[in-house]
């Protein structure tokens, strides 16, 4: 959990993924489309990946990847991100966290 929080606070937009996860690829693509440069951490490439996955599961993230943090705060999984994007709040969160400017 500490490592998750630690990594999540280091950048305005942070996405936890797995190299084999294609839905993660979609969420990354969406962030790039919006002009954000999220930090991407692949759990299967991290030594503490297992623990981090457990921490994400404990946060209620299901499936555990992709897991999105904006401004250090947990935003949700793919479903949450898409829902937020549809009502316009994703962009606003990114602007507020200074991940994007417009």
């Amino acid at each position, binding site marked *: 959990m500490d490592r998750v929080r630690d990594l999540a606070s280091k950048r305005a937009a942070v996405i936890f993924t797995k190299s084999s996860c294609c839905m993660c690829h979609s969420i990354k693509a969406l962030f790039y489309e919006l002009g954000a440069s999220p930090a991407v951490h692949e759990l299967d490439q991290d030594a503490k990946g297992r623990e981090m996955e457990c921490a994400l599961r404990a946060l209620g993230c299901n499936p555990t990847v992709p897991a999105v943090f904006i401004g250090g705060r947990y935003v949700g999984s*793919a479903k949450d991100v*898409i*829902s937020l994007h549809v009502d316009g709040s994703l962009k606003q969160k990114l602007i507020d966290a200074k991940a994007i400017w417009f």
Partner: protein
Amino acid sequence: MADVSPMTDTSTDADTEDKNLRNALSQGLVASDGSDKSRDQKMLRRLAQNREAARKSRLKKKAYVQQLESSRMKLTQLEQELQRARQQGIFISNSGEQAQSMGGNGALAFDVEYARWLEEHNRRVNELRGAVNQHAGDGELRIIVDGILAHYDDIFRIKGDAAKADVFHILSGMWKTPAERCFLWLGGFRSSELLKLLLNQLEPLTEQQLMSINNLQQSSQQAEDALSQGMEALQQSLAETLAASLGPSTGNVANYMGQMAMAMGKLGTLEGFIRQADNLRQQTLQRMHSILTTRQSARALLAINDYFSRLRALSSLWLARPRE
């Protein structure tokens, strides 16, 4: 049930005996005077009893045959019901256990459910059309519009369950008409296209509304593109996995099994893409409704329905077209 056992047919024996007796009497072989009267009487009584037994036997046989006939009719009826139930995807085992739904016929069951949903949807939309044409008040319109949107939630839930059972059937779009299938995206319609259509149908819109609808159209397009990219990545990854299982080492069974297992894992993620695509459709509809007034939402739903009705009509025309 009465003990109607298939008794041996004694009717002919009694008849023959009767005939023999009459013959015997007419030929004087049997004495009709007093000396053998008791013996004749005994024989007559026996013959009468035989006749009675034979008659009873005939009646029992008739009853038994009638029961067989009605059982046969009942059996035919049950067989027909069973056939109908099987067609609807209800699994019924041979030992007569309780019925479970969505057995091997998940695709067929979904097609039936979708057809039912569509029928109900059209009924609701016609109700809305009637209310709009009769200048119904906002209150009444809101009830019907809310009902239609809630009903949309039903089909998304049904599709979710069906995708768990048979993701390829949903992806194939075979449950839609041919022309609709032409525009299929991840197992359904593109919200961004619907919104483009509505921008022309919904005037007049306020500045704020126009901006919001434009933003919504752009957001849904971005989300669609993102999901499409994920699907492409999935296809690529799958192709690479299958290609990796080919190779010079043809005897490497473990390698083959490993690659197949990986490919299976990737196929399992398809359902997630359909779920997110449907989630996008659902969210877009809700968001559109929140931006518009009740009357505008009503017109939007009617326009959407008109559009898809035309697509379906086009499919029918196409299928019925004269060919050389």
